[in-house]
């Protein structure tokens, strides 16, 4: 199991296009991927769960990955967030 903290920097937070990009990227990996915001968590492959988490700009979240491609998955998702989803 690997995990990493990251802050959401793009203007709209994890909404709309960024959320979709995040979820479709997560869906490519075999590992179980979870998004943690404070006490709450969401399945990173579920668009509704990710949206419901309500992650806004400036929020710090933790992404955890568990499975055969966990390291790759985690690093890809972190990179996506750090690059502000190319906004």
């Amino acid at each position: 199991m690997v995990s990493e903290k990251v802050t959401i920097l793009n203007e709209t937070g994890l909404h709309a296009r960024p959320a979709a990009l995040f979820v479709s990227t997560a869906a490519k990996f075999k590992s179980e991927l979870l998004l943690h915001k404070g006490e709450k968590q969401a399945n990173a492959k579920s668009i509704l769960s990710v949206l419901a988490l309500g992650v806004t700009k400036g929020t710090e979240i933790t992404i955890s990955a568990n499975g055969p491609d966990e390291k790759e998955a985690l690093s890809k998702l972190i990179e996506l967030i750090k690059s502000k989803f190319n906004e």
Partner: protein
Amino acid sequence: MIYDGIAGSEGFAAGRAYVYKNKQAGIEMRTVASEDVAGELSRLEEGMKQSRIQLRSLKEKISLELDEDKAQIFEAHMMMLEDPEFIGTIREAIRNDRANAEYAVKKTADHYISMFEQIEDAYMRERAADIKDVSSRLIRNIAGLTSKDLRGIESPVIIVAHDLTPSDTASMDKALVLGFTTDIGGATSHTAIMARSLGIPAVLGLGDISERIRDDDYIIIDGLEGKVIINPSNEQQTEYAGKIAEYRRMREKLEGSACLPAVTTDGRSVEISGNIGTPEDIDDVVINGGDGVGLFRTEFLYMNRDELPTEEEQYGEYRKAAVKLGGKPLIIRTLDIGGDKKLPYLKLPEEMNPFLGWRAIRICLERKDIFMTQLRAILRAGASGNILIMFPMISGVAEVREAKKVLEEAKAELRSENLEFDGNLKVGIMVEIPSAAMTADTIAKEVDFFSIGTNDLCQYAMAVDRMNPKVSKLYQPLHPGILMLIKNVIDASHKAGKFTGMCGEMAGSIEACIILLGLGLDEFSMSARSIPAIKDIIRNVSYEKAREIACKALEMDTPEEVVEYSRDVLRRLNL
């Protein structure tokens, strides 16, 4: 009869109503025999497949017509259909509750819909509408019903409905739609967003307007005031014909005049610039007719990374911005971090009062290494354009002297390294701390310009936290006390032959514009979108009149009086 609703998209439309009934037939719960569960799961699969095909084709159709962003809505709907939690829950309902597929979808969708509708964020509540839309589609496909759509429109009409979803509007002929009016919804609804992107009016949230209007009724919708008139009288029709013509003239004026200079009717010229967060934001500023950039926030270079940005990285971004603007002025603000804005690699202290704490220039003067790197990068970029530098959070002239000393050190270093830079870079400060505003006379002798950061100036001067809902009403930039501080700063700069700009939100405020102009403000810097409207006001008023108005405002007792006066002035000038 006139009905009041929410103005979702501005403009006017007068024409025949096309009433679109899209009520969904009731979904009944049937209990399925255990041997039929597999069959129900198949029906679900089939319904999902059909929905996917429809959504894909809708997405392609929209992509060809509008921009990619609108088509993304259907991409999002497709993602919902693939959502493992959503679909998993539906399948469980079929297996465990032995519900029929339609009901299983409805029950699951309702759960998500109510969850989203309860979230405080307006955007999220609108996502509930997306779930409704996609689950309706899924249910209709499972049941084998054909979707009703707006394809039947053959002449220009105003669409009237209970609500309009992306699926509804996807199939309509846009050229024939004059406007929308719906029972529910508001400024952030899909209907409003779609109307704004088509440039047509929308009046929403009228409650039961779709029951009151009959197909083919002649109606007028007013997207500025949020009104709908059914079967208007001749008088009303004439009145609105006038309003429509007026509106059209105003739009043409705004669009045309954005790129003209901001000069008053009696010849006083001011600069209307944009506030940016990254070099890419400059495009918007230029499109909206900005004369330059009055505030380039540099924090983006420091945030969301593991270590400080290097001089080369910073130089690259500053240079990019300077080049994008051609010779237009670019005011770069040095690092304004601290307090609430955390940088994990800087180990900023936990403070009781971050807004009155170790931040911005205070950090830079203590951490000279950080400051030098940024100053060197800005100086070097100055060789590629018209850059000015601005120090934030200055409380008095001592800090100015210290900061300028470091700047000179940076110049000396660059000179000895034979690196190209702008040795005559103009230096200014952000006036946001009252003690600096009050001693502007002294500071004016040692800087080239001021830029008033009204957001923080007002908070510090009025002891109000804008973000605190309990007191945010007290935050009033048009408070006579704040106006006096502003006047003091402007006068001090002019006495010393320097200029004063403003980069706080007040600069883009239509209510404050004429007063600020009359106080002698030389530059107004705001978000790009506000530029055309502010330029329009400047071009339609005389500086002499503005000065009179500013004088009157300064004599008033309360901010409420100033606001009322300002609105009255704008009304009388027809602005």
